[in-house]
């Protein structure tokens, strides 16, 4: 019985391994066959246990093992198992040879029994070692396979994620493009709004002027009418004097008539300038620089601003003075824009003195002064008022767009910011303010020449 444990163990290990292989590789007949072999080995072992060891059963074991080893060895479906089979071969063959020699040449066997025994032990060790080594290789391969499967799985997951992400990116890109287009459109709208605002600021300041313009046109027209009327009368008188032969008087009247015609011409031009100025003021700036007389602009807008406010508010009154440097001559500028700056500064100055007048009453004499002066690096235009001045805490904000101290609806808050743009950007000049709270402000424009 002791002898049979080894073939049983070998048959079982071997058959179990092959059955598993057959099962994995879907070889159902082979699977059955190996199951039967297992069954047979077990039965043989039990029979031996009952009837005791005999030479017959030993040969049956040999046959069983030979069959197990050599039948699959020739089959192509078991090619991957060959190294496994080879592990068993030496033991199966040597144990067979051993038994054969024991039977056939007992003398010889007896003499070399120790060698036979060692040989079998060696083949058994070989079997164990090979199995062990194969097992290790198998495990390593299995590990590698699992690792690869895992990696494949990760790669598959990555691929799926990648597709998802690409979809997401496309979606986001589309969204961003849409947002960009929306923003571009909004920017376009804002630009339009800005130019509309600038235009409405111009129109608002024109509105402030309307009454002043009416007054300023009416005045020269009155003179044109009055001087032409009086000239007509003078002509009649001259006729009388001529008839009387009064030459000295005639000479005097002729001189007056000449003077009157000059006056008519002067006042006609004055009205003409006002209308031109108004049209220029309402028109979008051409941005074209031309030689213009800063003194004419200053004087014209001083009157327009004054009479404009005066016509809107009858109680308004202020002293105004112009101190103009006649040596300046014509300088290069965008006249309608500089005119707008002057007008704005003057309107603010008049507004400031009116506020103070309202607060202080009779005792206060509101005064606005505009002066021009030739300086080393250009021309300086100063607009001063004796109003309340600008509080220190807002002085930094006055040139910012939409900043206004006037009540809602009274100011756009664009006046000074536009002035600043025109002076600093368009004319590369400077716009500065000095102010003393309670005493007044001075705005200084420096235009480089």
């Amino acid at each position, binding site marked *: 019985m002791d002898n049979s444990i080894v073939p049983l163990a070998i048959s079982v290990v071997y058959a179990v391994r092959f059955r598993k292989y057959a099962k994995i590789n879907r070889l159902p007949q082979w699977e059955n066959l190996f199951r039967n072999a297992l069954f047979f080995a077990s039965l043989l072992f039990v029979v031996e246990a009952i009837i005791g060891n005999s030479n017959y059963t030993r040969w049956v074991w040999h046959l069983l093992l030979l069959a197990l080893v050599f039948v699959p060895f020739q089959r192509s479906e078991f090619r991957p198992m060959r190294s496994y089979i080879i592990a068993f071969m030496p033991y199966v063959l040597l144990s067979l040879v051993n038994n054969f020699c024991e039977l056939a040449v007992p003398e010889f066997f007896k003499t070399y029994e120790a060698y036979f025994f060692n040989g079998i032990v060696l083949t058994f060790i070989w079997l164990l070692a090979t199995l062990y080594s194969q097992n290790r290789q198998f495990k390593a391969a299995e590990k590698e396979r699992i690792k690869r499967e895992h990696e494949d799985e990760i790669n598959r997951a990555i691929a799926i994620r990648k597709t998802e992400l690409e979809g997401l990116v496309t979606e986001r890109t589309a969204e961003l493009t849409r947002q960009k287009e929306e923003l571009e459109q909004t920017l376009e709208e804002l630009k339009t709004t800005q130019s509309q605002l600038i235009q409405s600021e111009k129109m608002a300041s024109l509105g402030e002027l309307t009454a002043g313009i009416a*007054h300023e046109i*009416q*005045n020269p*027209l*009155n*003179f044109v*009418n*009055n*001087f032409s*009327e*009086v000239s007509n*009368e*003078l002509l009649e*008188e001259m006729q009388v004097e001529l008839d009387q032969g009064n030459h000295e008087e005639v000479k005097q009247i002729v001189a*007056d008539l000449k*003077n*009157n015609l000059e*006056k008519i011409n002067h*006042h006609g031009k004055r009205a003409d300038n006002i209308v031109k100025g108004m049209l220029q003021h309402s028109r979008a700036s051409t941005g074209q620089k031309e030689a213009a007389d800063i003194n004419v602009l200053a004087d014209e807008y001083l009157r327009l601003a*004054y*009479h404009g406010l*005066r016509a809107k508010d*009858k109680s308004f*009154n*202020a*002293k*105004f003075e112009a101190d103009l440097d006649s040596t300046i001559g014509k300088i290069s500028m965008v006249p309608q824009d500089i005119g707008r700056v002057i007008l704005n500064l003057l309107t603010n100055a008049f507004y400031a003195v009116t506020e103070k007048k309202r607060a202080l009453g009779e005792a206060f*004499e509101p005064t606005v002064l505009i002066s021009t002066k030739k300086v080393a690096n250009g021309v300086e235009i100063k607009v001063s008022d004796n109003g309340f001045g600008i509080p220190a805490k807002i002085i930094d904000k006055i040139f910012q767009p939409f900043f206004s101290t006037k009540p809602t609806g009274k100011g756009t808050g664009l006046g000074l910011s536009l002035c600043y743009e025109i002076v600093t950007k368009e004319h590369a000049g400077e716009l500065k303010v000095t102010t003393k709270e309670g005493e007044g402000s001075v705005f200084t424009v420096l235009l480089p020449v």
Partner: protein
Amino acid sequence: MAKVLVVDDERDIKDLFEQHFRKEIRQGELAFVFSYSGEEAITYLQSPEHEAVLILSDINMPGMSGLDLLKSIKERYKTPPPLVMMITAYGDEENYQRAMQLGADDFLTKPLDFKSLKEKLKTKIP
């Protein structure tokens, strides 16, 4: 000879008056003095020898307005104050009312109708 003070910030008004009243000036019936602001007019009226019996004043002037001037004259001269005629732009109802309240003796609109002014002066000046 009656002296008339004309107050207006437009300097050309002087030529107009002198030409329209050429004959009257030459014949010594009327004399004109001109002031170009309310303040100037007050200074003139403060001089003892001013002799002005009638004042013609524009309302719309920078600094001291015609109405301020009117008020000042009517306050200063209790008996008898010089005649004051106010001149202003056409259709200015508000200034008209104010001038009347302050005691203006007459009211003229621009552009001045010198013919009717002449008539008025003849009847108003004693």
